């Protein structure tokens, strides 16, 4: 969850970087959530994430030396905008290839809001959307499941 000073170009000047940290095996910015926080419906054409108080560390910038205890509330919805299509190259490429997975993904639109807080600072977003880049959703498998 990254916040930037407006009008500072691309890449913009970053002022907050709230993330779950990196686990000892290298699992990157990935944390467990309650199962009840994520719902998939409409035959996989809709999904929602509603979770409150996810503990994160605010390193202020990417891989910053500081780590300030913070938390976020996330409310996001995904809606498929196209039919599913096969993505990934499976076992036809080496395991460390970017395409070493198989999935049936549909392009999607994601929108919603996030609130965050730490001692001395909080923020609330307006509507965030994936309109400026990309979103997708669907079943997938990788690694030993290929």
């Amino acid at each position, binding site marked *: 969850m990254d*916040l930037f000073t407006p009008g500072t170009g691309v890449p913009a000047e970053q002022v907050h970087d709230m993330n779950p940290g990196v686990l*000892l095996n290298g*699992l*990157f910015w990935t944390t*467990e959530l309650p199962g009840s926080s994520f719902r998939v419906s409409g035959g996989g054409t809709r999904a929602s994430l509603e*979770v409150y108080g996810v503990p994160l560390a605010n390193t202020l910038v990417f891989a910053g030396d500081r780590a300030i205890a913070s938390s976020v509330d996330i409310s996001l919805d995904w809606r498929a905008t196209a039919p599913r299509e096969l993505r990934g190259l499976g076992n036809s490429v080496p395991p460390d*290839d*970017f395409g070493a997975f198989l999935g049936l993904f549909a392009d999607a639109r994601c929108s919603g809001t996030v609130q965050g807080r730490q001692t001395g600072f909080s923020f609330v977003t307006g509507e965030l959307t994936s309109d400026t880049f990309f979103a997708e959703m669907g079943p997938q498998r990788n690694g030993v499941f290929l």
Partner: protein
Amino acid sequence: MHLAHRAHAPMSRRTFLGASAAVAAAAGVGIGAAPARAQSGLGHPANPAPSPIAATVPSGVTEPAFLENIHWLLPGPIGATTPFIGLPGFGLDVDPSTMGDYRGFTAYAVVSGEAEGSDGNTYDVEFDVRVMRGTYETATGARFDSTFAFL
């Protein structure tokens, strides 16, 4: 009561707890019927044991140098860039999961917009979010069901 994951084998306290979660879900008090507010499960006294660590995806970026050894990829159309960091999409045949040895349902997005800070300032926001629900296999070969998110 929230129990986040279910082990496949062997039978253990974790397996028992997972089975209890399935029962709770069937009864409409677990996964199938969300409470009004789903609190993060981490550190909650009702979460009696940590989940085993999932594997990383073996791939990762090597450039630019500040991203080296990061087990993370960026699905997105070739030629598109994220709005404020300016990272380029790697293409669509790119694994959105940060977990390896994983099978499940993944929802991925890079969302952007604005935020109002308590300091009175307005900020630009870029948020790469991925939710991964399904089964993962640990380094010991044990399999677990859970929900993870890259945030």
